[in-house]
C-alpha cells in the first residue's frame, strides 16, 4: 500500500468517525439539560464543533491524498508481514495478561513476571541481566511508591502482598 492510499483510507475513516460522532455518539453520550440558557453554553456545543473539525480535516486529508500532487514521500510500504502482525497481537495479549496478573498476584510480582515475559518475547540475549532486572526493579519501585510515597499498591487475590 502506498502512503497516498493509506492517507486516503485514513481521511475517509476520520470523516466517517466524525459523522458517527455527530449522529450517534454525541446524542447518546452527551446529556443536554432542558434549561440551557443559550445554545453557545450547551454541553454538546464543543463536542459538535470538534466533530465538525474532524469531519473537515478528514475530508481534506482524503482529498489531498486523492487529488494532491504526488511527491517523493509517496513510497511503497513493505508488504503485510504476518509474523509482525501476530507478534503485535501477542503483545496486546501480554498487556492484558499483565493487567489480569496484577489483580491476581499484586503489582510487584506481576511486574517481575511481566519484565521476564516481555524480555523473553523481545528475544533477549542477556538472560541473566533480564532476570536480575525482573527481580530488582519492581522491588525498587515498590520501595519508592509503597514505602516512601505511601501509595497503596494493589495486592492480589492469590498473593496478598504488599
Amino acid at each position: 500500500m502506498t502512503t497516498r492510499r493509506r492517507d486516503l483510507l485514513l481521511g475517509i475513516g476520520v470523516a466517517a468517525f466524525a459523522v458517527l460522532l455527530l449522529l450517534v455518539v454525541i446524542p447518546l453520550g452527551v446529556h443536554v439539560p432542558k434549561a440551557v440558557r443559550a445554545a453557545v453554553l450547551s454541553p454538546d456545543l464543543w463536542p459538535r464543533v470538534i466533530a465538525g473539525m474532524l469531519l473537515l480535516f478528514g475530508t481534506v486529508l482524503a482529498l489531498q491524498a486523492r487529488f494532491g500532487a504526488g511527491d517523493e514521500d509517496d513510497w511503497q510500504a513493505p508488504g503485510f508481514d504476518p509474523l509482525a502482525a501476530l507478534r503485535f497481537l501477542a503483545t496486546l495479549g501480554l498487556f492484558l495478561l499483565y493487567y489480569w496478573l496484577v489483580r491476581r498476584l499484586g503489582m510487584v510480582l506481576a511486574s517481575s513476571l511481566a519484565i521476564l515475559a516481555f524480555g523473553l518475547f523481545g528475544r533477549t540475549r542477556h538472560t541473566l541481566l533480564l532476570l536480575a532486572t525482573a527481580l530488582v526493579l519492581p522491588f525498587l519501585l515498590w520501595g519508592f511508591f509503597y514505602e516512601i510515597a505511601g501509595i497503596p499498591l494493589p495486592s492480589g487475590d492469590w498473593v496478598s502482598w504488599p
Partner: protein
Amino acid sequence: MNAWDAAYWAFQTIAQPEAVAALALGVVIGVIVGAIPGMSATMGVALTLPFTFSMEPLVGILLLLGVYKGGIFGGSIPAILIKTPGTPASSCTVLDGHPLAERGEAGKALEMALYASCIADVISNLALILFAAWLAAFALSFGPPEFFTLILFSLTIIAGVSGDSLTKGLISAGFGLLAATVGLDLVYGTDRFIFGQTELMAGLNFIPVLIGLFALPEILAYLRRPTEGVGKVMDLGRHHVTWREFRRCLRGIGLGSVIGVVMGAIPGIGGAPSAFLAYSEARRISPNRDRFGKGELEGVAASEAGNNGVAGATLIPLLALGVPGDVITAVILGAFMVHGLRPGPIMFQQNIILVYALFMGILLSSVFLFITGKIAIRAFRRVADIPRSILYPSVLALCVFGAYAINNTMFDVLVMFATGVLGYFMMRTGIPAAPFLIAFILGPMLEDNFRQAMLMSQGSFTIFLRSGITWFFWAATALSIGLIVRRGLGRRRRPATAGGD
C-alpha cells in the same frame, strides 16, 4: 511582600537539601534518558512525573525541570558517539559531532557540546528571569476573552509540532480536544461521554494519556519487530577542547544562544529547528564554513547552543501566561496542575516565592548540568548501547506503576494501555502525537474561557473583540495561520517545480 523579601524567602526554600538534591538527580536522570536512543526528554519527564506526587510542589517541579534540561544535553551523547540522536533536538549535532568522533575526537566534541549547552542554558535562563515577570505583569489585565484568544493563538503551535502533514497534525489535535471533553460538563455538571463509567466522571487523567502516547508506542514497535542493535559506540580519544578552540567557537555559541532564546519564546518552534538555524547561521559567518559537515567544532557548538538556548525560553510563556511553548512544557504544565498550581500571572502574585525559587533552581540547573555533563561524558557513554530487550520491559513496568500511582486505580492503567495502542496506530499512520497532547491540555482551558466569556456577555460574541489584547491575539492567530498556509503551499510547489525541472 517586596521583591527582596520574596527573593530571601525563595532562597531559604531552594536551599533545602531535598530541593537541591531533586534538581541534581533530575539532571542526572535527564542526561541518562537523553543518552539512550529511543528514549526522549518528553518520555523522561513523563516517566519521572509519577515519582513527584509525594513530593513538595517545588521539589517535584525542580526534579522535572532537571530531567528536561539534562535530557536535552544527554541527546548529544549518542548523536556524537553512535550517530543516533538521543532526542530530535540533537539531530543537528550529528552533522559535525560524528565526523569528529570518527577522527578519534569524540571526547573533544562532547566537551564542546557540554560547554555550548551550559552557556546557552545560562543565557536562556537569564532571558526567562528578565522577561517572564514583565509578561506576567502585563497579563494580569487578562480576562476570559483575552485568555480564550491567547489559547487559540497558542493552539497554532500545533503547526510547529505536526511534522510533515499539517492536516494530520490537526486531526491529532481534534482527537486530543475530543478526549479532553470526557467527564462532567464544566457549567451544567452533566455527563459527557461517560457511558455509566464512574471513573470517567473526572475526565481522562493526563498522565496515563501522556505515558500511553509517548512511551508505549515505542515498546509496541520494538516488540513487533525486535532489533537489539544500535550503532558502534566510538572511543572518546585523548583530545580535549583547548582555550583557543573554545574562543574560536564563542561567536557561534553566542549566536546560537540568542537564536535559541528567540525561537524558544515563540510557541511551537522547539529545539530542532532552532539548532539547524543556529548551525546554518554559524556556518554563514564562520571563516571555516567549508569544514562544516566534515567535523567542525564550531558546528557542534552552534547546534548545541541553538537547542539548549530554547530550554529556558520555552518556560517564558508557560510561567508568565500559563500556555506551553512545546510538548515538554505542556507536560510540565500538567505537572504544575497535578501539584495544585496554575502557572500564569496569578501565580506571580500568589506564589511569588515559589516563582523566585524556581528561577533560582533553574539557574542552579546550569551548574548541575555542567558537573553532570563532565561526568556523563566518561561514565554514561555506555548507556547508549543498553540492550533494548531489557530497557523496554523495564520502561513498561515503570509506566504501569506510574499510571496506577496517580489515583490508585487500575482503571488508569487500562487508559494508558488504550492510549498506547492509539499512539501506536498514530505512529504507524504518520499522525503526530504531540498535537494530541497539547490539544488535550489546552482544550479544557479553551472551552472554559470561551464559556465564561459567553456567560459574561450573555451569549454575545462581540466580547471577543472587547480590548486591544484580544485584537492583538486575533491578528497574531491570523498571521500565524497565514504563515502556516504559505509554508504549506511552498512545500507543495517545491516538489512540483522539482518534477518540472
